[in-house]
């Protein structure tokens, strides 16, 4: 709870209109895409780093939590105020400050919606690749906090590969700048990379300098249909071995296909065990040649058809379908555990086999789809929370999925982050001394633990307070 002095001070800092304590507003800033709400005590809409700095200083003096929030589209609970306090929404900080075509950089505020930024740079013949499924509404600040990835990661990498420098408000209120505006830079520790993916626990990004690429001249989108899931998985590595790195190499299994087809009706084959959505980009000549290779490799690896999308609408439809999978899975079961594990690309066939074994062992429907090209598979264990037996099996299955993924030299989260969703599994992947080091860094930067508390680390206190839902339980 915030006392009146704090409330009045918040009003003074951001202005009365940009600050709310009303129940209606608190309810609307209590959730993200994990769908497990926690009410904050206040929501503020600051306009600059200076205002955020004042709030952070007050948070340390008055001991209240502060939670940064972009569009609230995260899958790990990064923006949830699990211990109440003040939600700092970046919705007003949405200026694209500059786009510099000569140096191929851009400077943006954190509340800029990714899609709007991409549209703007593409108009100028430039390209900003990170493309999480939420790209039409997520914010760049949130992308940086969670180190968002997306289908294009296979060729272009993830958000961290495009952040050159940051302006950050530290948990103690200092405003610092990190990084450079150049392609190279090794002066001191790489604080930019420390901040990217820190899930809003080490600082609040108030400005970002981003690296841009030239916009590829053309793109070809293909859809390869496989009667066998294993063949599709094997084709992924085969394409790379044929010396083509597609800009996208996405896998959908039969469950995903059926669900999403029901929503989007784009003519996906309902009887196929798997489809690969493949894109190659670059200059016209290169793209044509690479598409031919992809076509050949897919057919050689058991694809029955490879269709090339013709026209913008067909491409748009296929992508709409791909992006809608996650949400449309709820059409089968009311609840799902959604894990974004990653394994080395060549281990995908083993992963798929293992997942099928876990699925039949527990009698649970597991939908798998995602960025096969970089080994990042979204594993969705479908269940009904009200069915306690099923819920318990789902819980067990998750641990087995993680163990499988780690045994294959993978990681338990490729792009969603730990947040509250994976906090209790941290020890599965990280050694105690590594966790201690991370906690020491957190302590050094946020000695009073005011910024986004209850995330990543599973100290007993935060567990008790956070009212943990199931593992990544997204409903």
């Amino acid at each position, binding site marked *: 709870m915030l006392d009146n002095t704090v409330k009045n001070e918040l009003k003074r800092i951001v202005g009365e209109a940009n600050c709310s304590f009303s129940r209606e507003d608190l*309810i609307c800033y209590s959730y*993200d895409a994990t769908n497990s*709400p926690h009410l904050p005590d206040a929501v503020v809409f600051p306009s600059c780093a200076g205002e955020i700095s004042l709030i952070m200083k007050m948070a340390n003096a008055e001991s209240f939590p502060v939670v940064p929030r972009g569009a609230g589209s995260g899958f790990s609970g990064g923006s949830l105020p699990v211990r109440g306090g003040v939600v700092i929404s970046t*919705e007003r900080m949405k200026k694209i400050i500059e786009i510099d075509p000569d140096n191929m950089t851009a400077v943006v505020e954190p509340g800029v*919606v990714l899609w709007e930024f991409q549209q703007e740079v593409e108009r100028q013949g430039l390209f900003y690749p990170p493309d999480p499924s*939420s790209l039409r509404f*997520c914010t760049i600040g949130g992308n940086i906090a969670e180190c968002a990835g997306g289908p294009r990661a296979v060729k272009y990498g993830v958000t961290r590969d495009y952040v050159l420098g940051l302006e950050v408000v530290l948990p103690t209120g200092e405003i610092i700048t990190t990084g450079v505006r150049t392609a190279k830079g090794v002066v001191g520790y790489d604080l930019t990379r420390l901040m990217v993916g820190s899930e809003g626990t080490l600082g609040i990004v108030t400005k970002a300098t981003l690296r841009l690429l030239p916009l590829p001249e053309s793109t070809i989108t293909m859809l390869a249909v496989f009667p066998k899931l294993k063949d599709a998985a094997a084709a992924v590595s085969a394409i790379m071995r044929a010396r083509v790195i597609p800009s996208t190499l996405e896998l959908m299994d039969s469950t995903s296909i059926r669900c999403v087809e029901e929503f989007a009706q784009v003519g996906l084959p309902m009887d196929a065990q798997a489809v690969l959505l493949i894109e190659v980009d670059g200059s016209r000549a290169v793209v044509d040649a690479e598409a031919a290779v992809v076509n050949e490799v897919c057919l050689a690896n058991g694809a029955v058809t490879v269709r090339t999308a013709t026209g913008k609408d067909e491409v748009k439809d296929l992508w709409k379908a791909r992006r809608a999978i996650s*949400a*449309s899975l709820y*059409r089968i079961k009311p609840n799902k555990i959604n894990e974004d594990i990653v394994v080395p690309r060549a281990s995908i066939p083993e992963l798929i086999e293992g997942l099928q074994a876990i699925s039949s062992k527990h009698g649970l429907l597991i939908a798998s789809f995602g960025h096969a090209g970089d080994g990042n598979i979204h594993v969705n264990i479908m269940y009904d929370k009200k069915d306690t037996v099923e819920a318990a099996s789902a819980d067990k299955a998750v641990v087995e999925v993680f163990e499988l993924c780690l045994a294959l030299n993978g990681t338990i989260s490729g792009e969603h982050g730990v947040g509250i969703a994976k906090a209790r599994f941290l020890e599965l992947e990280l050694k105690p001394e590594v966790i201690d080091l991370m906690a020491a860094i957190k302590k050094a930067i946020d000695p009073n633990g005011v910024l986004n508390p209850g995330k990543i680390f599973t100290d007993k206190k935060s567990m008790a307070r956070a009212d943990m839902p199931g593992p990544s339980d997204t409903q």
Partner: protein
Amino acid sequence: MRQQDLIQAEINKCVRCGTCRSVCPVFKAVGRETACARGKITLIGANLKGELPLTEAYVKHVKECTLCGACRANCPNGVDTTRVYAAAREDIAAKQGLPFTASFILKHVLDSGRIMPLAMKWANRLQSIIFKDSSAGQGLLSRFTMPNVGSGRLVPPLAERFFLDLPEVKALDDSAKKTQGAAKVAFYAGCGVNYLMPEVGVASIGVLKRVGVDVVVPSAQVCCGIPAYSMGDMDSARAMALKNLEAFESTDAAFITTSCATCGYALKKLFRELLGDDPKLAARVEAFSKKVRDITELLVDELGFKGDGKNTVNARVTYHDPCHLGRGQGVREAPRVLIAGARGAQLKEMKNPCACCGLGGGLSIANYELSMEIARKKAENIKNSGASIVATACPGCMVHLRDGLHRFGVDVKVAHVVELL
């Protein structure tokens, strides 16, 4: 709340992914979570569970919506958002009542096609005292600031003679008359055409006659019920739906058509929602709704009309998709075919032609500033299209587009597609 379980089930389907943030015109103007579907749905859910009382802020957020349906069309989880909003509006109206003027207009004016001729004649005389003609000739400007009108608001003039009172229209009421072999089409005018834009109705009937169909205009028709529905007055909306159903059943027409996207949506879809629960009416509504076609849809898809060059347009024309036609009825091609077929017209698409104009859902009454904020974006896109005419297929959109274009200084004429033919 009526049908509480059904509404609760819809609310539960929302997984809070946030997709609605990318399509909601109100959210884009307001910029806060409370404005998008995810926020509204959560608030309505909290109210339903008794966690949030019917506060002033709650009502404001629920009504901050044009009912354009973009969230519904784009929801990956298939949440029937507009149905949830309608239920919440009904609940608010039931508990708080309707404002007096709204309830008066719904019950006494819109509930009959030829309302209070004397009062309306007076209204006609009064309007020249209160309003002046705007330079653009597309509407009236208030001579002084009035509550509910807002300064600088372009108000559509009441027609000198309402569409349903025109002698040539009255002559078409004889539903028994039948031309040999011609398809019989019953024309539904709607309030926009009847009170504000009879010329759109006249043009519609003109083109139908040129195509050679036999047109009837049942005089017993009343308002489609959408204004009542938006305000949560479902009883009035149902009563209106029933009157229309009876008025048109007696015509034995092959098709029922309208030049208003919103009315068409009501006739096609909403009547089922309003009357479908009643087992005695379900089959009748079904038969009625199946016959309904938007005028553009009827002309192109059913009658094979693609323009006969009677009218010469000679202009670049851009097309605004009314929410209730594009998303609501899935009719996007037919109006474009007609524009492309008009002599001298060059179709020039604007950016986001299907984005809401800002009028709907009673937003232009509940929050005029906000509805104009939405119209600002529309006006910008229309301007950037380089067209000199923006055509659309809904008198409601026409009113709001004229107001918006006038306010933001964009010199583009607004016309109904049928006026170009």
